[in-house]
């Protein structure tokens, strides 16, 4: 069966700063990042929608010990953000010194930009991810 929204399409859109998701025509849930069925009810009846990229930080960490090949990026902040449309998404956070981040940032509103992991010898190509910053 065909994908409504593949990783490649999602990834290319994110590189254009567009966050795509799938809206379920049966239960109304938005699934993002994409899956071949609705993340809530497993329906295949979904349409591609563009999401606002805005939401609220649910949790975070600052990574000081990164994986092989990511050393130059550390320290960096990872956030889980609940988007206004419902899904949770993983990205990074800019606009605050990584080693100054505390639980105070949880619940803060953020908007989305993006950054691209160029890929390594294991990853079969690059992968964009949201790079969030605080809403003014």
């Amino acid at each position, binding site marked *: 069966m065909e994908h409504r929204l593949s990783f490649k399409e999602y990834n290319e859109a994110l590189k254009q700063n567009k966050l795509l998701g799938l809206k379920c025509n049966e239960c109304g849930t938005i699934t993002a990042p994409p899956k071949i069925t609705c993340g809530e009810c497993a329906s295949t009846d979904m349409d591609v929608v563009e999401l606002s990229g805005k939401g609220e930080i649910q949790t975070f960490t600052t990574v000081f010990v990164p994986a092989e090949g990511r050393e130059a990026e550390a320290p960096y902040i990872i956030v889980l953000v609940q988007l206004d449309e419902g899904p949770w998404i993983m990205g990074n956070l800019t606009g605050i010194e990584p080693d100054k981040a505390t639980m105070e940032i*949880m619940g803060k509103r953020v908007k989305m930009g993006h950054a691209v992991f160029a890929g390594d010898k294991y990853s079969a190509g690059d992968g964009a991810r949201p790079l969030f910053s605080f809403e003014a």
Partner: protein
Amino acid sequence: MRRVAVIGVGMTKFSGKQDKTCVELFAEAAMDAISESNLKPRDIQALFMGNVLGDFSEGQGQPQVFAADYIGAFNIPANKYENACASASAAARDAFIWVASGFYDIVLAGGTETASKMGTPLATRTFAMGSDSRYEYPAGITFPGVFAMLTHLYAKKHGIPLEKLKRQMAQVSINSHHYGALNPKAHFQKEITMDKVLDGFMVCQPLQLLDCCPFSDGASAIVLASEEAARKLTDKPVYIAGVGQASAGNLLSQKDYLPRIRSRELSAKQAYDMAGLSPKDIDVCELHDCFSIATIIALEGLGFFEFGKASEAVETGQTKIGGKIAVNPSGGLKAKGHPIGATGTAQVYDIVKQLRAECGERQVEGARVGMTDTLGGDGGTIVNLILKRGW
């Protein structure tokens, strides 16, 4: 379904970098388990082995077939299980199902890993492969990072100040090292102090070095037999009374259920229901303490404490031997060590030793029922086994 017993167990010492290969380590554990079962390698009908990173650590694919041949279990079917850190538990559960079904009478399950060999950067990279490579890894996720985020969620959800939670988490590691110091097979056999935990370097805010389990090398193996075969081979069969397993998608898909792990709650319920038991019936539990906070989350998901109450329970000694539930008297992943593909059946090894009352100074007096809990990835796999004395 037939009743199935564990009739023999073996494990290598867990350690840092080993000169032995993952196949050699597995063979040591397997030969001990087979000989304890009063069997010969040719009596084994199938081998189910957990191994995650043999290809990265040694350039070794399908170690299970080489292991079967190496121990003299010539030409038997041999399968590898890769469920990240829960690999050996998934292998053991499937071995149980095949014996319970009547297809096999005697199966060897186990696991092996040489993760320490890889060094921290490559080990961190390959462990992170247990996360979602498309939708999590680009943000630079690591396993300490996953549990660091769960720590912040836990603190906020339950209104526990982070400084207080951190001291309670440190107590988890202190307890593990206390028991590890009494376990000759443990990777770390030394006590640690609160100050030492809180002085460690930061790995992923707020997890410091001693909140994290080590990368270890080691192997473990267990022999499973039908009740009929077990009765002929041993007078101390340990029956597998209940099993459970569940899966989950990436961390972000688990959304506001976090920091609870739904796959654990589903898996544990399967195991309890099958055994006809409840959390209060468990005398000793080897649970997946890959990070200090992981113990607290597991204690609640397994039903030993109410949600939001486990960190206080650790602080007040309720998870030590003599407390409400004896947790990780082996030293757990933190001190006994975590050679990921071998961890699940190493937990079974320790529960079997407890039920046989062979644990010396760290023995849980009168233990009759034990449980294992193994987590793979960010909740991607959970396996639970409940074991009972058969005598």
